[in-house]
């Protein structure tokens, strides 16, 4: 059966979910955000959680064991990043994992080991900014089909729309490692899509919970179709985001001809889902959803941040319009592992 998650894949999600629930509840996220704000240089992350994430193998999850990784594929990465999105995990998880792919596949063994063990991490170039970058740390940037890792030489922080994500302008050093492979970007899009999926699902749960708990006119507000239908729309969008992201994961895993198209489609529907679901979620909560103390705003702000990651919606347009037609004949093939010495050779 090609489209049923295996026990192992489900486990990647449930282990991550359990760990994040215990170690990174949203109350902690707020504390990190406050600390980062006052420190002005630091990131909104917990070094202990980051180290333990490394121990769980998260930074090399999708890299072959022969290259020092865990040996899983894109679908497992999607399971992990869905949970990171759901818990609004702070820190540059996406770009650090990408840097790990590039370092390990290009033979930068020491750099890869440093990334996998949590000693080094990488921010992400996003438009004119560097997201979650650190002075002297790494940054991932895409240029066409090339994915490169550089060092950050200078960093000037700016106020970020998302208080738990660091935003800065910076000066970059020369390329340390790079790889020219359009599928690296496609695979990276899926990490962001998965985080957006996690956000879409989290705010859906939040809205449904409130629809049941909150009473007006003597009954739960979830009985009103205006609220119920908004929740149904949120569920439909989440379902589309999940199905497309997983299906694209299979295409990327099999390195099929359709992988770039499928992952662009995943990014498009996932961005839309996170964007609209977080808006609907605030509306479902009424005035309390608009307050700083309520989490609805944090999800809306993170969705806003992710909307522009890896070129955003506009970047997906060429890939979606480049093909003449939907290519049904390219079913996801059974080829793994992905980041292996064979690919490099």
């Amino acid at each position: 059966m090609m489209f049923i998650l295996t026990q192992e894949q489900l486990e990647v999600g449930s282990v991550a979910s359990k760990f994040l629930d215990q170690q990174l509840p949203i109350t902690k996220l707020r504390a990190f955000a406050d600390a980062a704000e006052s420190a002005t240089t630091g990131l909104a992350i917990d070094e202990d959680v980051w180290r333990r994430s490394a121990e769980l193998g998260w930074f090399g999850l999708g890299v072959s064991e022969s290259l020092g990784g865990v040996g899983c594929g894109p679908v497992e990465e999607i399971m992990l990043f869905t949970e990171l999105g759901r818990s609004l995990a702070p820190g540059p998880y996406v770009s650090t994992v990408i840097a790990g792919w590039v370092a390990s596949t290009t033979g930068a063994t020491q750099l890869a080991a440093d990334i996998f063990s949590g000693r080094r991490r990488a921010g992400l170039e996003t438009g004119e900014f560097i997201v979650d970058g650190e002075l002297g740390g790494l940054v991932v940037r895409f240029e066409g089909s090339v994915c490169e890792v550089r060092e950050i030489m200078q960093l000037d922080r700016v106020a970020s729309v998302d208080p738990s994500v660091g935003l800065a302008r910076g000066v970059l050093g020369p390329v340390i490692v790079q790889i020219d492979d359009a599928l690296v970007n496609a695979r990276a899009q899926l990490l962001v899509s998965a985080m957006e999926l996690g956000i879409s699902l989290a705010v859906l749960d939040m809205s449904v919970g409130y629809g049941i708990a909150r009473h007006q006119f003597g009954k739960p507000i979830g009985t009103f179709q205006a609220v119920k239908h908004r929740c149904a729309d949120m569920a439909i969008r989440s379902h589309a985001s999940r199905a497309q992201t997983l299906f694209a994961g299979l295409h990327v895993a099999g390195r099929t001809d359709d992988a770039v198209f499928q992952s662009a489609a995943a990014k498009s529907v996932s961005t839309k889902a996170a964007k609209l679901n977080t808006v609907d979620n605030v509306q479902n909560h009424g005035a309390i959803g608009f307050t700083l103390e309520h989490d609805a705003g944090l999800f809306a702000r993170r969705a806003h941040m992710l909307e522009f990651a890896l070129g955003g919606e506009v970047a997906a347009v060429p890939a979606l319009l480049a093909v003449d037609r939907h290519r049904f004949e390219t079913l996801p093939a059974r080829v793994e592992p992905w980041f292996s010495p064979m690919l490099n050779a």
Partner: protein
Amino acid sequence: MEGVDQTDLGSFRDEIRTWLAENNPGTPPPLDTIEMREWSSAWQRRQYDCGWAGIDWPVEHGGRGLSFLEQIIWFEEYVQSGLPVGHSCFVVALAHAGPTLIARANDEQKAKYLPPILRGETPWCQGFSEPNSGSDLASLQTRAEIDGDMLVINGQKVWTSYAHLADYQELLVRTDFDAPKHKGITWVICDMHTPGIDVRPIKTMDGGAHFSEIFYEDVRVPISNVVDQINEGWSVAMSTLAIERGPAALDYQLGTLRDIDELIAVAKNKGLLKNEELAMRLAAVRAEGAALRSMTYLSVSESKSGAAPSPMTTAVRTFWGELQHKVGRLAVDVLGSESLELGKWSEYWLTQFSAGIAGGTKDIQKNIIGERALGLPR
């Protein structure tokens, strides 16, 4: 979740592609008339004779007994070949009545009714909606009295596609007026040529004439035509609706993807992809088309693995209906004033109005998603 071994499926796909290229009927189906039935029957028979009918139906009912993957590949190649989808009076027989009979009928009924469907002999229609029972289907009032070994049916059905071309109907009737509304319904096979049935066509706003209203006056149907038990019809109907909202409509859904591809080609030829807003909207519907296919693959995989049918299969249908609306609106925007002349795309726009209504309005579907999938209170 893993990929598939392409080796065998690839050659199966090539075989279908070759066959469709060599056997394409060439002429488009005539719409809504008795000639449509002749066209649909001949084309279905041709598929049957060459082993392409009922690919995932059991062998004993005339099918090929292959897996859902082969069935999907057939639909994909069919759509890719450019053959018209959505224009067959066998759609209810193949996608609704057949799968319901396979799931719920007794052996005698299966042997009698299933093979003629695949052979292209017997178009079916559906008899569910009534003038006063639309979204609230279970409130239906068409009554059946038991008279010996016969049911005597009186009442009215409406919005029945291809009733005027069908030999049989999957008919829902009330057999118990005292029981709660879901408990007094029976699912019965009705021969459309039985005396007392009056079929009156209804024209639709897009100019089509495949709809009818049907009047039943003392229509006598053998009790042996009841599928499952008397008063168990609601659960039988739910299996039909689950099918309607799920994978059986895959060829129609893929047809929407093909429409999107064609619309993008039109926009490209007009140089409109340089218009950033139109390009973004076209890209977004193409992405949603891809997602529609992925959602269906997910539903089919889940149902074939024996998992309980997810209420989220309803979401696929709702998503699809809203996508058709967006495609139709985009078509008008891409064509501009050219869309004023009746033609392929203006007709698409007029037809898509039914996408949020047919098979249960999207509004009732969102109630179902809210209540059954999400657990919101009624």
